[in-house]
């Protein structure tokens, strides 16, 4: 690897052609170096520009920006707590739904799938990852939400005992939009990412390891539970975090279906908002300086949350295998 870079310049026996060639060697390296540094600068630029742009909001509201859930563009009072909670709740619920399914798919593709079906099913899962977020949003709002309202939301709301906690967390307008619907759509969106990473991880297990377990008479379930999962544990946690990172920052699909109401989400069927959906909805119309600054400050909060999650994910996956 370094051998290629450290090779001495061509010998002077071919002077006419290599004079420029050797001279440009350094130039090309600098060009490549600059491109790589540009990427770093872009990431740094995002943090710095968000911090500067959001500064007026932090200055005006101080710590209140983080603990207050009041978001009132008319009176110019902004607090991030509602959107932050919405983001964390929808992303966690999405992860909760997606995780077992993604895991099942990965196991299916590695252990159970008939060879003939492996490629088509693998491709189908990949396509699910390729569908643009806005298409998920439209499908969620116009197809999924009505179905969900009729077949899931109404029965649950009807059967909830009045006065119980369950009744409290399941109240809402029965239109199918809200926290839970957004979480389900998010779950479908992050499912293929977690499944694909998990599958790659499972494929790194040496065949002998799995085969010895099978040879001892283990069932598939036992091999997976006692051999495969322990083997890829670190990386699997990384894969989960990667999915969480996607769910946290997902914008358009959530904007369509979460209902876009400010404040703390009160029930799983209630409308809510996430950081990304708030920015998407309001930023283009945020003419007041403080409004725009508060949205950018929200962006900074989102960046910090996702940065921590994604960095952890990369560290854990990187430790497991070079994926």
């Amino acid at each position, binding site marked *: *690897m370094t*051998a*290629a870079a450290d*090779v001495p310049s061509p*010998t002077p026996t071919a002077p006419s052609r290599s004079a420029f*060639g*050797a001279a440009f*060697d350094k130039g*090309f*390296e600098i060009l*490549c170096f600059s*491109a*790589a540094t*540009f*990427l*770093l600068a*872009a*990431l740094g630029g*995002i943090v710095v520009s*968000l911090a500067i742009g959001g500064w007026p909001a932090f200055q005006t509201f101080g710590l209140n920006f983080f603990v207050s859930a009041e978001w009132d563009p008319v009176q110019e009072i902004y607090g991030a707590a509602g959107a932050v909670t919405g983001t964390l709740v929808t992303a966690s619920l999405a992860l909760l739904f997606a995780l077992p399914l993604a*895991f*099942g*798919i990965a196991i299916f593709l590695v252990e*159970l799938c008939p*060879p003939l079906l*492996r*490629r088509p099913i693998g491709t189908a*899962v990949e*396509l699910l990852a*390729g*569908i643009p*977020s*806005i*298409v998920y*949003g*439209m*499908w969620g709002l116009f197809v999924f939400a009505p179905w969900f309202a009729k077949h899931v939301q109404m029965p649950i709301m009807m059967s909830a005992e009045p006065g119980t906690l369950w009744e409290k967390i399941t109240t809402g307008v029965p239109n199918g939009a809200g926290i839970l619907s957004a979480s389900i759509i998010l779950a*479908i969106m992050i*499912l293929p990412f977690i499944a694909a990473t998990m599958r790659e991880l499972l494929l790194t297990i040496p065949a002998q390891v799995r085969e010895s377990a099978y040879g001892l008479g283990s*069932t*598939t*379930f*036992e091999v*997976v539970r006692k051999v495969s999962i322990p083997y890829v544990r670190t990386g699997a946690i990384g894969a989960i975090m990667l999915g969480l990172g996607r769910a*946290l*920052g*997902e*914008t358009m699909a959530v904007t*369509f279906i979460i209902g876009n109401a400010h404040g703390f989400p009160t029930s799983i069927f209630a409308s809510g908002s996430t950081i*990304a959906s708030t*920015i*998407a909805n309001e*930023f*283009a119309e945020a003419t007041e300086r403080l409004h725009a600054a508060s949205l*950018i400050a929200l962006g900074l909060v*989102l960046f910090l949350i*996702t*940065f921590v999650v*994604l960095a952890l994910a*990369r560290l854990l996956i990187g430790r497991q295998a070079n994926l």
Partner: protein
Amino acid sequence: MTTVAAPRLSRRISEGLFLTFCWVATGIAILALAAILWSLLSQGIGGLDLNIFTKSTPAPGSEGGLLNAILGSLMMCVVAMIGAVFIGVLAGTWLSEYARDSHYGKVVRFLNDVLLSAPSILVGLFVYTILVAPLKGFSGLAGSVALALLAAPVITRTTEDVLRLQPIALREASVALGAPVWRTILTVIWKAAQGGMLTGALLAFARISGETAPLLFTALNNQFLSLDLTKPTANLPVVIFNFALSAYDDWRRLAWAGALLIAATVLTVTIVARIIAREPRRS
């Protein structure tokens, strides 16, 4: 242990439940894909006539198409891809050929991976604050910059990955013939890895062609046909967003047709990329 009857039964049951669960999980994913594709086709195909490609976005109630949005999206994506390929290929080359084990290389690789999955709306905010706000105007170019920032990390990543797969002997052979390192990279390593690099570029293109969030406040939108990227530029994703949430049926019909167009493009490009990259799979 295995001679006891009861554990055997429980093992068989847990095994059966587990296998069923894996089948069902996969079934759910396939079902979701089928449901989404079916909705796209059934709702979108009706609006997909010649007008879509020949007329610009209409006022509610009048006839129109998506020509301005399609053209705007194409222009922005092409400009973005030119920038992203330039940056991404060079950065990926640096990571693979010059900085494999250096500390700085590790930092760049790590942060590029973070940038790769960073929320796209934040990239939109970033471009807004550095380009749109200072220049006092939304523009297609700002949209292109935002898209390029999303595509570049993908290309960097795939370029590095495929370049690393090239055998060292290839580099040594070229250098031994007297080629300088830069020529070795350009004419030997890139050439050997071109299929993989093309796949990376196509996947990056697939990713940005459906991106909506970063365009909301960079390219904005434009009702009229315009080839001027320094002005607000119509683009499919934002038009779909606005039309889908409108109260007009004909706008919604156009939104579905646009969604079908975008999804078809993205899925086709993804499949083509996969075919190019087809590698022997481990079983």
